[in-house]
């Protein structure tokens, strides 16, 4: 009887036994597995969404950069309507800027980039922007659709997202 009481006293403790930790860990591992799998699936899904979002964002930024310069440009030199007045599309656009120089945005297919260069309207060598305007570009199409050479449509595809913008040249 005395031994039992001693045993009873030693049994009353406030700590956690190894068995409890193991049972708790097993349940946690099970829950963690379910949560982890769900989290992994969500990450995969979000990665796809972000890729589309990144593509759209790149399209917007690229369009914005080109449109700012095109809007105050003076005339589009290339592409222009075909001789039969049908629309003409190309992967580059060349125009006279506000200051009269020739500006070109062109697509480098091997690097999948859009680049800009400035060609002096007069003596002097062309100047190339050190950084591309956009990267990971699948395609870009500039379309001339008016005979006044003042309206340009810009179609772009980046990372599976598409964008279409039109810009009208304001200056003569």
């Amino acid at each position, binding site marked *: 009887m005395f031994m039992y009481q001693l045993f009873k006293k030693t049994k009353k403790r406030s700590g956690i036994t190894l068995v409890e930790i193991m049972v708790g860990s097993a349940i946690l591992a099970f829950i963690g597995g379910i949560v982890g799998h769900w989290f992994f699936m969500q990450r995969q899904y979000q990665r796809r969404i972000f890729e589309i979002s990144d593509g759209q964002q790149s399209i917007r930024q690229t369009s914005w950069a080109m449109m700012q310069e095109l809007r105050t440009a003076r005339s589009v030199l290339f592409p222009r309507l075909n001789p039969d007045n049908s629309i003409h599309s190309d992967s580059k656009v060349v125009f006279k800027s506000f200051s009269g120089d020739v500006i070109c945005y062109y697509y480098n297919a091997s690097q999948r980039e859009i680049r800009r260069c400035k060609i002096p*309207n007069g003596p002097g060598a062309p100047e190339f922007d050190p950084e591309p305007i956009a990267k990971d570009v699948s395609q870009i199409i500039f379309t001339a659709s008016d005979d006044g050479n003042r309206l340009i449509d810009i179609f772009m595809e980046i990372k599976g997202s598409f964008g279409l913008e039109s810009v009208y040249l304001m200056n003569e």
Partner: protein
Amino acid sequence: MDVENEMVDQEMYIVHISNKKGIAIVMVIGLVAIIVPVLYLLSRLGTSHVKLAVKYQENLQTETTAFSGSNAGISRLRGNLRGYQNLTNQLIGDESYNLNLRPTGKGFFQQDLYFLLSNSKIKSHHYAIMAEAEQFNPEPDPPVLVISRDYWNTIEPYEIDQIADVLSMQNDRGVDLLRLDETRDYEKNATPAQYSSEMQAKSDWLPEELVPDWPEIVDNLKSEKLSM
């Protein structure tokens, strides 16, 4: 003996409860350790992307609002409103623009010359347009003939009702206009053959994407070349 058995049962029950409590503590600590980081990560995901999209939207809205201001200026001139006009905080929808029509003198045909300034600001985005406008005398009634030209844009935070800012804008725009004069002078002074060969010679420096169509571009340049 019965009392002893009862005490043993009670002890077994207490040990049973104690086991459940331990498991519960480990579970709570573990779940908090899993759930808190997961919730934090989920809350962080996508925030930067949404911010970028909103930024672009604001950029576009600022530009569109400033253009509305510029068009409003032309409408006012067409309506035969003359003299200095400074209109601030003009609303278009929920956004506001500022408009400044600053007379700069008389033209060759006694038309009034203006600087047509318009700007808009949405959060940290600015957009300002500066152009020249010629307002002819109405014969006999409005609408007046208005010719606007040399539109120039900037995203610098210029205040168009501050003379110092307007002077800065004039200077910035003036640099581009001086370059325009240079290119126009070059076009005027060169013969079509000289101009064509000078531009054609640049073909050697051009990127390969541009080379095949360069002769056509030079032809277009030549067809638009200014003459004396």
